[in-house]
């Protein structure tokens, strides 16, 4: 990958440009049930990346021909809001957001008990309000809390975070600068029990050893996020 050149040193004495160590995640904030009108919702902040997810359903499947008689269908919409990035993003679906919606849907298909909702649709709506790398993982984390908040049956929550490579070093949770100028980005989503991987992508190049290291970091990151997710859902019913 290589990315864009930058004059800012990304890694000095094990410290990253925002002061974190290599295995430290950005501060997390999760809130469940933030929207009154949606059936379920969640707001997640991971550093400067902010996402809000809403879940509707189960509801009638439209278009009718796309329904599955013996199970439900997940419909995921991922969208970066126009003001989420420096140069105003043209609103509407594009190639990138369709790809992210697809991988997000596939991640949730592994945990949501779709057999319980025949002929129905469950809509997941992810909006990125502010983007600073890792939008798909933050969106996934938010959507998972929103699904639980909507009372949808699933075997487990999904937590998601990314590892990456900057200056030939594997680090946890890239920020925007590291993502643009780093060498690799590996978003990973895991089930809460930490036994299954629901999503894994890689952009850039890594050796086998580096990938193992990246996985290890991401697993600890996901565990931390899972704790925050559970905490957010509990707080809602205190």
């Amino acid at each position: 990958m290589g990315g864009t050149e930058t004059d800012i040193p990304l890694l000095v004495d094990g410290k990253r440009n925002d002061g974190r160590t290599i295995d430290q995640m950005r501060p997390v904030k999760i809130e469940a049930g933030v929207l009154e009108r949606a059936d379920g919702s969640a707001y997640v902040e991971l550093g400067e990346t902010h996402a809000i997810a809403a879940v509707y359903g189960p509801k009638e499947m439209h278009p009718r021909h796309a329904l599955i008689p013996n199970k439900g269908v997940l419909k995921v919409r991922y969208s970066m809001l126009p003001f989420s990035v420096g140069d105003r993003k043209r609103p509407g679906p594009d190639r990138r957001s369709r790809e992210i919606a697809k991988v997000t849907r596939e991640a949730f298909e592994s945990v949501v008990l779709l057999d319980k909702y025949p002929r129905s649709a469950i809509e997941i709506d992810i909006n990125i309000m502010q983007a600073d790398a890792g939008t798909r993982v933050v969106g996934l984390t938010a959507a998972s809390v929103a699904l639980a908040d909507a009372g949808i049956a699933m075997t487990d929550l999904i937590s998601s975070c990314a590892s990456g490579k900057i200056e030939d070093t594997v680090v946890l949770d890239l920020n925007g600068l590291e993502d643009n100028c780093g060498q690799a980005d590996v978003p990973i989503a895991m089930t809460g029990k930490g036994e299954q991987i629901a999503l894994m992508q890689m952009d850039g190049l890594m050796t086998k050893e580096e990938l193992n290291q990246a996985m290890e970091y991401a697993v600890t990151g996901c565990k931390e996020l899972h704790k925050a997710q559970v905490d957010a859902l509990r707080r809602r019913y205190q």
Partner: protein
Amino acid sequence: MTLKIENRQLVIPGDQIAEGDYLLGEGTYREENRVYSTVLGLLDAKESFLKVIPLKGKYIPKPRDLVIGVITDIAFSMWNLNINSHYSGVLSVANGCERYIDLNSEKLSDIYAIGDVVLAKVDNVSESLVAGLTMKDRGLYKLNDGKLITISPTKVPRVIGKKGTMIQMLKDNTGCRIVVGQNGRIWISGVNINLAIEAIQLIEKNAHKQGLTDEVQKFLLSRKGTAPAKPVAAKPAAPAAKTAPVAATKAPAPAAPKSAPQVKKLAEAELPKMKGSEKPETKKEVDDMEVF
């Protein structure tokens, strides 16, 4: 056989509930020897039986559920109903009411018109998201002159309470007639509709908490000054015994000489509006039904 989470505690999808040979109900699944939760809810453990009572979710009709539906459309020989679900309700002429309906001489809209609210029972649920309803049973009728509110269907059991204690208390303290459908719709009629609604909203908001009956009772008693009790004479004899403890803890009847005559006037004003199905004679029968 060990519980990992205390009974009545909040569980989240993926939380391990127990380990061992339990019988599993709704909201749980087994992986090898371990039992996990699938929904956000409260654990309900009874000896060897485990289930999770969800805190949120849409209504999915089950046969024999009592639901309150709104007529949305009339077809040649059936009514379509909105039953607060993604399943649509269908009431066929054959199940429309106890008597025989002659399609040649009667208009279906004269029996139930679009917009009418009816109390019906789920007869069958088909795989194509259609709930077949029936009104051919005692205590199933059209609901007139009341207020319809909607709460989360998962909170209906709390509104009814154990063996109907909560709903009985609401009725006793507000003097309203209250019908609760499993689909989250609640129909209220009477003088103190607003007090009943406030109490139900209090239940909905605190549905995950314990000791809810006491809290609601406290709320109702604190509002007694503005909300006079139901006239004793109107109460059927049987439930009176059931509610005796409630009456005992009640403060001595609040001195409300001002409000009492007012209520009487209001009650009288309501009377001419009442329609056939709301005659006092049918009332006892209705009371039996709505408590389940």
